[in-house]
């Protein structure tokens, strides 16, 4: 990476650390932080999802980590490619007060502002109570999600560098 250039790989941990399993993303971020290459930018987001578009514009790749609503398998990890497919409706946010991740991704797609590579790791939560810690099932897989992302990053960073070099 040339001096002063913005990192071309973004890792965004979505969720609130004090809302039970909504803190899965931030918990993974804490584990990732000491191990990330210099050309990877790590952010945490628990506010305005639309602001994510500005964060990933210009990036060659973005990895998102978020909690998904409770189902039958708390702690289940799903990795979805959001460039080739929409976030399934079952993961759309059921809120009228703010735009969720699904709306944000689709808005960016309509605006031509998706990064070339965009994946989301979804961790199925069990409880989202205010002030609660991670549930045992989710706490148990934080390390596994971290390892998966760290294993994937070298290839993503190499492709991002190739992309930057070809742009230059």
């Amino acid at each position: 990476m040339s001096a002063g250039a913005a990192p071309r790989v973004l890792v965004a941990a979505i969720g609130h650390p004090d809302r039970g399993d909504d803190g899965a993303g931030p918990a993974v971020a804490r584990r990732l932080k000491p191990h990330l290459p210099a050309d990877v930018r790590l952010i945490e987001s628990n506010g305005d999802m639309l602001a994510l578009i500005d964060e990933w514009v210009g990036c060659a790749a973005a990895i998102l980590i978020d909690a998904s609503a409770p189902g039958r398998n708390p702690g289940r990890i799903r990795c979805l490619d959001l460039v080739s497919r929409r976030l399934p409706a079952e993961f759309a946010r059921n809120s009228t007060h703010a735009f969720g991740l699904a709306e944000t991704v689709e808005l960016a797609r309509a605006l031509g502002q998706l990064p070339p590579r965009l994946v989301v790791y979804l961790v199925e939560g069990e409880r989202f109570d205010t002030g609660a810690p991670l549930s045992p099932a989710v706490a148990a897989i934080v390390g596994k999600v971290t390892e998966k992302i760290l294993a994937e990053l070298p290839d993503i960073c190499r492709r991002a560098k190739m992309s930057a070099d070809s742009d230059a």
Partner: protein
Amino acid sequence: MATKTVTVDYIARVEGESALRFDIRDGVVENVRLSIFEPPRFFEALLRGRRFEEVLDIVARICGICPVAYQMSGVAAIENLLGIEVDPQIHALRRLLYCGEWIESHSLHIAMLHAPDFLGYPDGMAMAADHGDAVRRALALKKAGNELLRLLGGREIHPVNVRVGGFYRVPSNAELAPVAESLKRAHDFAVATLRWAATFPFPDCTRDYEFVALRHPDEYPMNGGRIVSSLGLDIAAADYQDAFVEHQVPHSTALHSTLKRRGGYLVGALARYALNRDRLPADLQALADEAGLDPVCRNPFQSILVRAVEVIYACGEALRLIAEYERPARPFVSVEPRAGIGYGCTEAPRGMLYHRYETDSDGTIVEARIVPPTSQNQGTIEEDLRQVAMAGLDLDDEQLKANCEQSIRNHDPCISCAAHFLTLDVHRS
């Protein structure tokens, strides 16, 4: 006799959960009911027994779109109760914070929630493919508003930096400088947004509203002023309960509000503009004229233009406030609890927001009363719906439902605040 019932089970692109139902019997629209089924949230009750210092962080949680409004009316009421006058620069910072909320709330509503109605799209995402520049401008405006909230409020949603007597921390001029650069660009985007919205097809509609808004001696109203109306009401916030009454209706978990002896009224952007246009800068009045706005606009569909005017105003006002800012020597004044009653009324993006608190001598909240703008507008929205439905009797049900939903979005209701969304049933006979 044939009866047809029109229902919309869940109104999209508004904040909160509600439904709409009305009957068409022999060519007459009857029983219009904007049913708010969002569960009651009991904020007034859960404030009782809390310390006065806790109020602002609690009321900010009422709404993710307009938390600043709740903090501003709350802090005005508590400081009124305690007899505190804040430093003029603290007042300026609070107005600057409110500008941020107006910019982000109005910009989101204009582009993502309301414009699709005029342009025939199901939502903002579908519209973005064809109107990308407009959506990108809205996102940039929202970002500028967010920057103000983050700097002055500590974070974008549910800010935490406002306290009774001032702020926990006040920004330096150097911290405000980059925000001013964003606001300069945002101001240009806001002007472009008004010109874009002015090209929309607006249905003919004239409503005989009694407009109610704050009026300040010098300022376009945000943080204070007297409560005035287009029919001569002119009272202090302390006299609110003498003039207004809330009552329950069976089909809504939100209280309806009326003017005693007069009935329904309208708060919000249309009302603010009608009663305070002369407080806008002359160049902005000229832009409003150019966009086709009358000095008093009684067509609710044109509220989108008024919001666009207010976004321009908020950007310009924020720039003025930053240019004149001098960091206060102290971020807050110390306060001591006392027994009393305090009143606060400010202009949320959706309209006038009233708070009243009573404390005992150690500062514990004994009584709290909060009257949000959507609660005040519910009856008037139902009357709008009746008129829009009457004008659309010959339409098929889907178009009639679409017109009705649009007419609700004219007022950018925040139903979560009022209860504290919308299903539409049409019954024809």
